[in-house]
């Protein structure tokens, strides 16, 4: 072992280095992040447009998707379209640059600014062409709304906006209902009034005719005639009183802002607010408002009965008298606005944290956004043990454990991709926790928040996960981790190219591990030491491979991560043992999540293995029997175990008989399989579930992992496959819902 290597091994084991020339202050980042120096040059999910006046999934769009949509609409194929495309992409780049400089504006304002900038840079002719393109794009109709970049404030703005969108829709529905009730109930009172003495009085009759014809009538006479008509069927005093009180509740409720009425007589107090910065406060307010909620619900129920004249005092008085807090159902609650609580991990007191758990387990529609700007935490005393994203991760896992709480964990970088989940959580009838890592880390100031956040997902330090208790009864339907990059793998692997000392292009595959994530955080600089170039040899092993080494091999190896400095010069850093341990723990945690999400599930794999063994035994036994039989009756030919091919030409395309090739394993009809050589690469099955179906080296489909999806998906793929070569076999999970029907549908393909 060379002296250099010895020093590295020593550092790895003890965290100490002779002469201690650590990279204490240098600005390093993982080599995989090297190409992303200037994000404003890239087309990616940010900036986001918080679309105004949108309902449902369209509440947020990425700037590039807005531009793409316009191009799809207006840019024809060919030269003309090409020019439009170029112009709009330039405009988009200019808008991106403005946002990166910190301009806060709406899309239309930003568009103007960028347009102005581009036009001022070119000559008349070019400007004319640009103007024409921009005009065309605007004529196609653009969405508008505030444009935001990825920074500390992003989650808060985005969730507020999503909540507004959900709330807007909910309010619209509620108001439609309330206004309808108001109108129809007042009509009952108005009709009743017409039967009263007061209505028939000359003064009122005069009012109803209007000034212009006042002289043409004798209202006294009219009144005398009318008074002789019967007043039968007028409302009882108690009914009238009840309707009045219902009207007053509907008009004065403060959950939904009623528009001002024509007469301007409505005096609704300012509507309630539902957005809070504290769990405790939100909780108190919610409790305070319960009586008001009950009153409104009661009023609506009575109104509905009254409109159909079905209110029976003998029966309903008592019923509504008993109507109290315990009568509230989740459906009732879902008619009211949900509460949005935005917390920041760093200024969240202990009391708040305790209240947070109360809120999440309450079953009430309170939606909590917890923003974390530091998932690593401060290195704890001396020994540098890693807290390892405890705060963020713990919170989400705890909330998942509550069972009935909707949970979404995602860093800012992935929020756009998770937009449907955000809406899902906000519309879910119970509580929801959104745990978001903002990426705005004080200790990694050289990385823009977007990159920091994206690195957190990549490195599994803060994986994307979603738990939706409303999606079904089992984990398979509720829990999802597929939003993570290369979710099947321990660490995502990316290819990385650079020029070596001889200016030759070198490409290698690098895994993005937890250690790579930590490498850009200055607080942890002590866990790394630079490896002098002359010591770069085979004893250096990338962290991912190092974790897979057997103990005695590991003892001879030095784990490293590849980083670049601010001049993009490649460096290798040895990683100390403590960080390696933390990295291993991170991988274990990730594997736990994978299993919950149905990836490499150990129970399923064990079951599969057991089934395979049983099947093989059975097969072996059958073959033995046949052999024995053949020995006993030497002249009788041994019938092949497979059924003989049918002679009649099939009317419907049948699956070909299994290949009789003796090399290949015999197939049980219980196992799903594809007749791969007949696959037409049509994408149907791979689009349906790319973890279950994949293409082989000939670009023809086969089943890579029958447990990576449901039996339903297998059957649906078999039905979608136009050449009928997917054979779904028998269901593997006996608990999957709807198996009877699925098995019946599968018969045609087995």
């Amino acid at each position, binding site marked *: 072992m060379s002296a250099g290597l010895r020093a590295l091994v020593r550092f790895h084991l003890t965290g100490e280095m002779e002469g201690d020339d650590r990279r204490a202050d240098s600005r390093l980042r993982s080599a995989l992040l090297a190409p992303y120096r200037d994000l404003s040059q890239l087309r990616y999910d940010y900036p986001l447009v918080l679309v105004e006046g949108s309902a449902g999934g369209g509440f947020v769009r990425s700037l590039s998707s807005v531009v793409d949509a316009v191009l799809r609409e207006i840019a024809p*194929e060919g030269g003309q379209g090409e020019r439009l495309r170029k112009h709009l992409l330039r405009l988009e780049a200019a808008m991106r640059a403005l946002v990166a400089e910190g301009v806060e504006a709406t899309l239309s304002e930003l568009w103007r600014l960028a347009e102005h900038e581009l036009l001022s840079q070119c000559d008349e002719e070019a400007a004319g062409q640009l103007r024409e393109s921009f005009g065309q794009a605007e004529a196609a109709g653009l969405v508008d709304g505030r444009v935001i970049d990825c920074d500390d404030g992003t989650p808060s703005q985005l969730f507020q906006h999503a909540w507004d969108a959900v709330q807007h829709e909910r309010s619209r529905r509620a108001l439609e209902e309330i206004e309808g009730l108001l109108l129809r109930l007042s009509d009952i009172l108005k009709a009743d009034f017409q039967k009263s003495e007061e209505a028939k009085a000359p003064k009122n009759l005069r009012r109803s005719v209007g000034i212009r014809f006042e002289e043409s009538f004798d209202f006294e006479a009219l009144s005398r005639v009318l008074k002789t008509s019967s007043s039968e069927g007028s409302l009882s005093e108690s009914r009238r009183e009840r309707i009045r009180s219902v009207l007053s509740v509907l008009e004065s409720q403060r959950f939904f802002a009623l528009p001002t009425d024509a007469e301007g007589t409505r005096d609704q107090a300012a509507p309630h607010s539902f957005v809070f910065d504290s769990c405790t406060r939100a909780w108190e307010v919610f409790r305070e408002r319960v009586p008001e909620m009950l009153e409104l619900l009661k009023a609506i129920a009575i109104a509905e009965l009254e409109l159909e004249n079905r209110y029976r005092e003998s029966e309903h008085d008592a019923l509504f008298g008993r109507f109290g807090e315990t009568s509230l159902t989740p459906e009732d609650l879902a008619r009211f606005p949900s509460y949005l609580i935005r917390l920041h991990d760093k200024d969240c007191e202990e009391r708040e944290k305790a209240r947070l758990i109360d809120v999440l387990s309450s079953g009430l529609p309170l939606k909590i956004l917890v923003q974390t700007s530091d998932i690593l935490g401060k290195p704890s005393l001396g020994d540098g043990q890693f807290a390892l994203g405890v705060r963020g991760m713990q919170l989400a896992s705890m909330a998942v454990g509550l069972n009935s709480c909707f949970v979404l964990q995602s860093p800012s970088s992935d929020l756009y991709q998770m937009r449907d989940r955000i809406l899902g959580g906000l519309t879910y009838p119970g509580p929801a926790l959104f745990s978001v890592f903002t990426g705005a880390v004080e200790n990694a100031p050289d990385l823009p928040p977007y990159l920091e956040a994206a690195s957190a997902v990549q490195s599994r330090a803060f994986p994307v996960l979603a738990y939706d208790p409303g999606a079904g009864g089992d984990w398979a339907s509720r829990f999802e981790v597929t939003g993570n990059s290369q979710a099947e793998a321990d660490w995502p692997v990316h290819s990385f190219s650079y020029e070596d000392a001889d200016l030759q292009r070198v490409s290698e595959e690098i895994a993005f591990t937890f250690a790579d994530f930590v490498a850009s955080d200055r607080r942890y600089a002590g866990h790394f030491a630079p490896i002098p170039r002359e010591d770069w040899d085979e004893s250096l092993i990338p962290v991912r491979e190092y974790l897979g080494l057997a103990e005695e091999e590991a003892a001879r190896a030095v784990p490293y991560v590849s980083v670049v400095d601010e001049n993009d010069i490649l460096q290798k850093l040895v990683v100390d043992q403590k960080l390696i341990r933390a990295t291993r723990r991170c991988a274990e945690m990730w594997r736990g999540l994978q299993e919950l999400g149905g990836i490499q599930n150990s129970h399923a794999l064990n079951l599969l293995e057991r089934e395979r063994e049983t099947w093989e035994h059975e097969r072996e036994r059958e073959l033995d029997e046949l052999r024995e039989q053949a020995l006993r009756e030497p002249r009788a030919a041994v019938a092949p175990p497979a059924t003989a*091919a049918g002679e009649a*030409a*099939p*009317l*419907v*395309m*049948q699956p*070909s*008989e299994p*290949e009789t090739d003796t090399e290949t394993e015999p197939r049980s009809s219980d196992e799903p399989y594809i007749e791969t*050589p*007949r*696959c*037409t*690469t*049509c*994408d*149907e099955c791979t*689009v349906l579930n790319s973890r279950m179906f994949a293409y082989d*080296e*000939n*670009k*023809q489909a086969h089943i890579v992992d029958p447990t990576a999806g449901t039996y339903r998906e297998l059957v649906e793929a078999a039905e*979608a496959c*136009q*050449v009928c070569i997917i054979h779904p076999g028998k269901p593997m999970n006996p608990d999957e819902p709807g198996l009877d029907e699925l098995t019946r549908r599968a018969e045609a393909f087995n």
Partner: protein
Amino acid sequence: MAMSVSAPRCLQWSDREDYQLEDYEAEVPRWCTGCGDLAILAAVQRLCRDEQLPLEKLVFVSGIGCSSRFPHYMKTYGFHGLHGRALPVAEGIKLKRPDLHVFVNTGDGDCCSIGAAHWLHAIRYNMDMTVLLHDNEIYGLTKKQASPTSPRGLKSNTTPRGTHLEALNPLSTTLGVANVSFVAQAVDWVPTVLYEIISQAFHHKGLSFIRVVQRCPEFLPTHFDPWMHDPDRLLMLTHEDGIQASPELSRTYKQQEVHDPGEMNRAREIASLKDQIPVGILYRNDEAPCYEDVVGSGPPITGPEKIQASVEAELDKFTVWPPSEGREGRG
């Protein structure tokens, strides 16, 4: 039968690399899920991989249509041309760069309608290239408009009451042109045979014309079902000079005919079959002269000096000359 391989092809085989199928893949195809074009693309990529064709020696030329997006999906040279003009562009390329393998991807609209004139002459010129007619019997890109190969009575957006005329038969038409040298038919849903036919076409010296019956599930989702669901309605043409059906294939496709691709008359009869789709090589003539061999392709434009000279000439167009040697001044 001797396989004819031109000299440049042999030469470039000497520096082959280990190409994988992915090396030929460019962007993710934008075709609809289930589209038969995907099967054709996969077969072509398998062929390139199996033949270890260097990326820079391949060029795919197309016109306009869904099928004509093909060149975008091959990580090779490509030319996505004008509607109906794939063939003349391909001929130009072949004439100047005989060392390239030229493939043409064209649709039934692109080839048999607007490009019909070029089609006939390209067959007669018989330049060494592989032409794939992606025939879905409809204009896919322009969203279900009738094409010349749409069967009579087909309802489309341009013929809401059904087309009025008998369809044009691309096989009989091609077989009727003087100097034709290779005509075959494949269906996209039998990938092994599709591959085999493309492979034989590729090895044929001269223009090989393959009509691929191609599904368009987007606009004609059940159009070819009667043939897909009844293997007896495919007629496999087998011959020692054509394709040979494997035992597995023969189990499904029992209707077979031994057809000698040298027999033009039988080829024409087969081409006009109505109920069955013939699959295999209908006609082949290795003796038909190729235009580029007859007229020669002129001096090659490759080689270091040539390249240098043409680059200089291109750059000169953008050079700002000092007043004394300005363009005008230099005459």
